[in-house]
């Protein structure tokens, strides 16, 4: 099966803890992304990676950091979570770096910060 796989599906943690989310794509794509979807369903891009190079980095807090070992994996680490980090984090991938192609999303990781 080829798709975008994320783990875990859900994560509940306390303020100040560190969390890490994993993402793997088996589509052979060159570019991977992390999107944040808040409670109002707004989708905002956080990071974009192409061949292990960060090519888009929106103004996200510095406690967020993407980590990639190869073009098929892009993890997301949050150093010290805050309540406003509660959201669904969607990993995605696309075939090329220049846009204009379909973006495939994983099923998401729902983070709840208590």
């Amino acid at each position, binding site marked *: 099966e080829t798709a975008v796989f994320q783990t875990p599906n859900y994560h509940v943690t306390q303020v100040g803890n560190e969390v890490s989310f994993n993402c793997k794509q088996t589509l052979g794509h060159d570019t991977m992304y992390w999107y944040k979807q808040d409670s109002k369903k707004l989708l905002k*891009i956080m990071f*974009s990676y192409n061949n292990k190079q960060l090519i888009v980095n929106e103004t996200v807090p510095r406690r967020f950091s993407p980590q990639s070992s190869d073009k098929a994996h892009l993890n997301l680490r949050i150093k010290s979570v805050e309540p406003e980090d509660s959201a669904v984090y969607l990993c995605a991938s696309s075939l090329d*770096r*220049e846009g*204009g192609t379909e*973006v495939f999303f994983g099923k998401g990781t729902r983070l709840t910060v208590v």
Partner: protein
Amino acid sequence: QQQVRQSPQSLTVWEGETAILNCSYEDSTFDYFPWYHQFPGESPALLIAIRPVSNKKEDGRFTIFFNKREKKFSLHIADSQPGDSATYFCAASGASSSFSKLVFGQGTSLSVVP
């Protein structure tokens, strides 16, 4: 800066009616305009997309109308079915850009009433 604006925020139509969802954009370098749909508990998935070389794209009951001069595009869902009930996102990206970055609208929650 909101580069892609979507309306209405929510829409209710009767089964069999045509649902019309609207989007506008600001960046004239955008040249790829997809629509994604997201069912409850699922991740967004591509529904249909258009490039500015044409002003209309059809796929079954789904049609995109594109107006380059006014920087607007819309999704028409003909003969709406209850199974079409979902959140719909318009998006835009610039294939000519060196970055791959899909900017999403705020979403429209569509309910189709039997």
